[in-house]
């Protein structure tokens, strides 16, 4: 931080609200209109307010996830107020998950729109490219995106997923999607005679159904899988 303040650096504090509040408060004076830092841990020298000059292009940014994510602390209103420019990114929906999965399998970047202007996505190297040639894989990705989004919403609602006695909520992140695709890729590579749908079912069982902490929760996950057409009771890949 001192180096960035003096030498025109930009500092990004990633996952800000994972830090203890007392650590965050240490930055209070840096976030003032006229930044100031007294290096009490070092040699008591000051940066700003008569000390070493703060470079005019010094900037500080922070990123964080919502406080309901596990382990995050809630920032005090006063501390939040010190950060002046905000940009909220909404949670991804079905379309975003589908785009993510298509990027992983086909390497196709989605078209994005910034301030009303559309930018066509390019084609990159897919992480799970071995799945691209499977018949019907695109429809499977659509169903998987829909299911994942449904499950995430069900988990977020906090009514039926998670251990209620221990008050632990289930979280289904994008890592799970990646794990499903990687597992499917591994099955296709190692068991070439096996239908890819079997590999997909195993992956869903392993990474979604297997995470259910009790029978009720397992039932909910299974029904949502069925609803999307990729469940233990229903396998029907819609358009």
């Amino acid at each position, binding site marked *: 931080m001192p180096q960035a303040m003096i030498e025109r650096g930009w500092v990004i504090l990633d996952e800000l609200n994972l830090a*203890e509040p007392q650590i965050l408060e240490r930055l209070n004076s840096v976030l003032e209109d006229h930044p100031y830092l007294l290096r009490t841990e070092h040699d008591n020298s000051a940066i700003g307010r008569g000390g070493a000059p703060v470079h005019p292009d010094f900037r500080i940014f922070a990123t964080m996830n919502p*406080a*309901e994510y*596990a*382990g*995050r*602390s*809630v920032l005090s209103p006063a501390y939040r107020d010190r950060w002046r420019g905000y940009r909220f990114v909404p949670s991804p*929906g*079905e*379309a975003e998950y*589908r785009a993510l999965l298509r990027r992983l399998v086909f390497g196709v970047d989605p078209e994005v729109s910034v301030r009303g202007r559309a930018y066509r996505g390019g084609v990159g190297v897919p992480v799970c490219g071995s799945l691209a040639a499977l018949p019907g894989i695109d429809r499977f990705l*659509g169903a998987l995106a*829909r299911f994942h*989004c*449904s*499950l995430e*919403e*069900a988990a*977020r*609602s906090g*009514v*039926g*997923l998670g251990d*209620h006695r*221990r008050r*632990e909520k289930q979280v289904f992140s994008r890592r799970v999607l990646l794990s499903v695709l990687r597992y499917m890729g591994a099955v296709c590579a190692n068991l070439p005679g096996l239908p890819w749908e079997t590999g997909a079912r*195993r992956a869903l*069982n*392993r990474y979604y*159904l*297997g*995470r259910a*902490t009790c029978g*009720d929760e397992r*039932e*909910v996950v299974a*029904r*949502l*899988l*069925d*609803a*999307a*057409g990729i*469940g233990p*009771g*229903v396998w*029907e890949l*819609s*358009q």
Partner: protein
Amino acid sequence: MKTDVLLRQLASLAAGLCQDARVSVSLSLDRWAYDPARRILYVRERELRTRGVVYCAGCLAHEVGHHLVSRYGLFEWVAGGGVPVRILLNAIEDPRAETWVGMRYPGAREWVAQVREVVDRNAAVGPMPDFLWFCLGCARRDGLPGSRGLEGSDPPAAVRRALEETRAARSEYAVALPPGSGAVSAAEVQRRYRGQVWPQMSAADQEVPVGHWEEVVRLFAYDALMAAKDEVWPTALRLLEGDVRRIAAFLSEAPGLMEAGKRAVVVANPDLAANLIRPAFLSLADGIGAPPGQEALDTAEALMRLLLSLQVAVPIMGDGDDSSRGGALGALPPHRALGPTSPRRRFAPDSYRVALARVAGQVGELCAAIEEVLRPRRRLTERTGYSRATEWTCGD
């Protein structure tokens, strides 16, 4: 399984299927109902216990379908068409909403089919106006693939003909749906939405800005509505006019009947109206004697309007009472249309409810935001424990 566990499962399914629509579930002791303003589905406790989650999930999926694609209420033609138009559209919208749910969630098709089977099995059908018979046939997908329609019932010949005449149009209506994947040309949607859909909407709804997907949904709702307006409504109207003439002829049979009819209209009592004109539909004869006078026609029309107000007054999910489950998926409860009493009658929404319905989404979001702010947070230092190893070990 305990009711609260079942309810939690159902609530999770609701959250999952509706995604960002935020439909919640609550228990009700006496009946099924859906409150579109607050987006709460009331589930009858006894049915949750006895029929289980899958049956209830079928009802839920049906409502999700309506929530996601039913938009006919936005259009000026529907608002100006009065109660009969709304009843007809409610009836033909059911197959459309269910088709959409089946496209989007293939697994939900089986759940909805289960509900349909129970509804069709339990719904008793009695004498009623041809218009209502027709609407019932529409709601039950009469003549459409994979449906038993009015099988087992005995509708009048005119209704059978009307259902046959409109089969193609109803079929077209049921599949006028946005594509499941959401891939629609943005430019084309915007052009048609501004040029065709938006001018047909009511003034209040024109003022509310909507996103791309909502425009797509409305565009397809508009296409469906045009098919209904041009090809289904004229047939329904013909039946409705026939019903009015029949009631008028019946009222003309005796001066006392006419007086009683006028009284029912003055006091605006639908039950009285239903009791009074019931005998007009008990007769098997289609023919009408001498043409009724204008006074009889006016009274008959007012009585018919009163009678139909019972139909729109019934909550979407109908009652949980086994004997009246004809109304469960938004269909009409026909035997009650002319029944002696309607103990749980609902009235048309007043201006407050209409206003509430308009801002319900925003109110819901505000409430959710307030709850979020007020929810006590655990500090970092209070966290204990790790996820169990068993969470990650499972059989293939």
